[in-house]
């Protein structure tokens, strides 16, 4: 009967559809593997939303979204020195759909001060590309009677322990930079940590503290107005916004480089083609006018180099900061 006929028909149809669906599924997944990216990418940023690094991330994400056609979604996971963010990263599959923003603290300093974080930055992660390097400036309050870095070192050596320097916190970029300078020059100055650049800057401007090291954006207006005097920059070349300020290297300290840097890192085991593609997209994005403008505002030097270049850079930084952290007895912060 027609009613009975339906049943075998339906079953045959059902099998047909299942077969077709199965084929389609395998076809789709094969497609997905070869055409990365095919779904949104999650970018873990180990800072609270709103800071400078988040701005860098957001600008890059906007560009990359336009270029690659899929959304790059920023996932802010601040706090704990970045350790929880990396631990979260460890829980994601190595398929190139989750990346993390790596920076000097996470890669070079944390391994020394958080030995049991549950991951190894070199073995469990693979660097993709360096995004930018932000120079650290060394400034003094205008009333401090020194004219350049040499006279500062002499001044400090004449009164050990009496000069103070402020920082944005323990193990912050400014703290590390100043400790590096201390190590290189042999000065004995006292560290006074604050919670963030703001309060630190406040006390330096008021003259209560004599020295400070921080990034360009926060200090530039005060250097220009004369409230602070910039003695040196921690970059390898002079920076364009302050062409009269010598680098620390110029005073005879070879190989001295203190910059705050950011990059992208993925899970170890991510297919190399995906890493290469991502790096190339980033290099392209870094040349876009919006991104160039943001970097110029910070006097940041854009990156975009290859994965192995970034790996070599990280290794160099780890070696450099290991010495500073140990000699400066820097603890988690």
């Amino acid at each position, binding site marked *: 009967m027609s009613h009975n006929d339906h049943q075998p028909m339906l079953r045959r149809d059902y099998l047909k559809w299942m077969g077709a669906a199965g084929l389609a599924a395998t076809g789709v997944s094969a497609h997905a593997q070869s055409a990365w990216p095919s*779904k*949104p990418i999650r970018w873990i940023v180990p800072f609270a939303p709103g800071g400078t690094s988040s701005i860098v991330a957001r600008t890059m994400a906007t560009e990359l979204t336009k270029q690659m056609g899929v959304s790059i979604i920023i*996932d802010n*996971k601040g706090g704990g020195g970045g350790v929880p963010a990396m631990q979260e990263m460890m829980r994601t599959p190595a398929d190139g759909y989750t990346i993390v923003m790596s920076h000097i603290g996470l890669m070079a300093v944390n391994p020394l001060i958080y030995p049991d974080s549950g991951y190894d930055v070199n073995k469990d992660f693979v660097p993709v590309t360096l995004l930018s390097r932000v120079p650290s400036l060394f400034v003094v309050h205008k009333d401090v009677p020194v004219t350049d870095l040499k006279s500062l070192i002499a001044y400090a050596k004449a009164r050990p322990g009496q000069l103070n320097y402020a920082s944005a916190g323990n193990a912050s970029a400014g703290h590390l930079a100043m400790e590096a300078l201390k190590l290189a020059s042999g000065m004995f100055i006292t560290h006074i940590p604050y919670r963030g650049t703001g309060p630190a800057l406040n006390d330096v401007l008021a003259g209560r503290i004599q020295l400070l090291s921080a990034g360009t954006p926060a200090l530039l207006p005060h250097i220009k107005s004369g409230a602070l005097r910039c003695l040196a920059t921690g970059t390898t070349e002079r920076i364009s916004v302050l062409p009269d300020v010598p680098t620390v290297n110029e005073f005879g300290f070879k190989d001295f480089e203190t910059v705050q840097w950011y990059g992208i890192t993925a899970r170890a085991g991510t297919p190399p083609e995906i890493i290469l593609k991502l790096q190339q997209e980033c290099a392209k994005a870094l040349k876009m006018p919006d991104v160039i403008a943001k970097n110029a505002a910070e006097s940041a030097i854009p990156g975009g180099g290859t994965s192995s270049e970034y790996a070599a850079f990280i290794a160099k930084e780890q070696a450099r900061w290991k010495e500073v952290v140990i000699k400066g*007895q820097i603890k988690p912060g």
Partner: protein
Amino acid sequence: MTPVRLALLLLGVCGVAAWQLTVIPPSLMQMTVGPVLAPAAIVAALTVVALLYGLSAWRGRQVDLSQEAGQEALPGSTTRMLSLLGGGVAFIALVIPLGFVLPGTLCGMCIARAFDAPFNGKSLLICGLIAGVFWFVFARLLGVGLGPALPWLF
């Protein structure tokens, strides 16, 4: 739970805090006030006040507001309390594997149960709506990281 037991609990907290003080690694840096002074002072002060509270409670002079007339807990109080806390536990346990909406709905239903609303379709619907709408507002519109709404949906 009476004031005396509360005082004992408090003293227990002070004890744990004091133990934690000893665990703070000594600092190698030279400073007038180290990392232990301020917390130690606070633990000492808290212990003193807790002892005074305990003595006062022992003498029966401390209040338990739920003993006042018209304020006693109605029967079933423990169930209600556990229900509310259970909602929290459910959320914590389930949010990572199951996304936001399902544990959120369950949490809401447990809390509603704590206020005597039974586990029924109405509860499911209302709590599901609350969880769903807020996932949408927070995660979609505002970009707060709440994870996926449902496990198979991004």
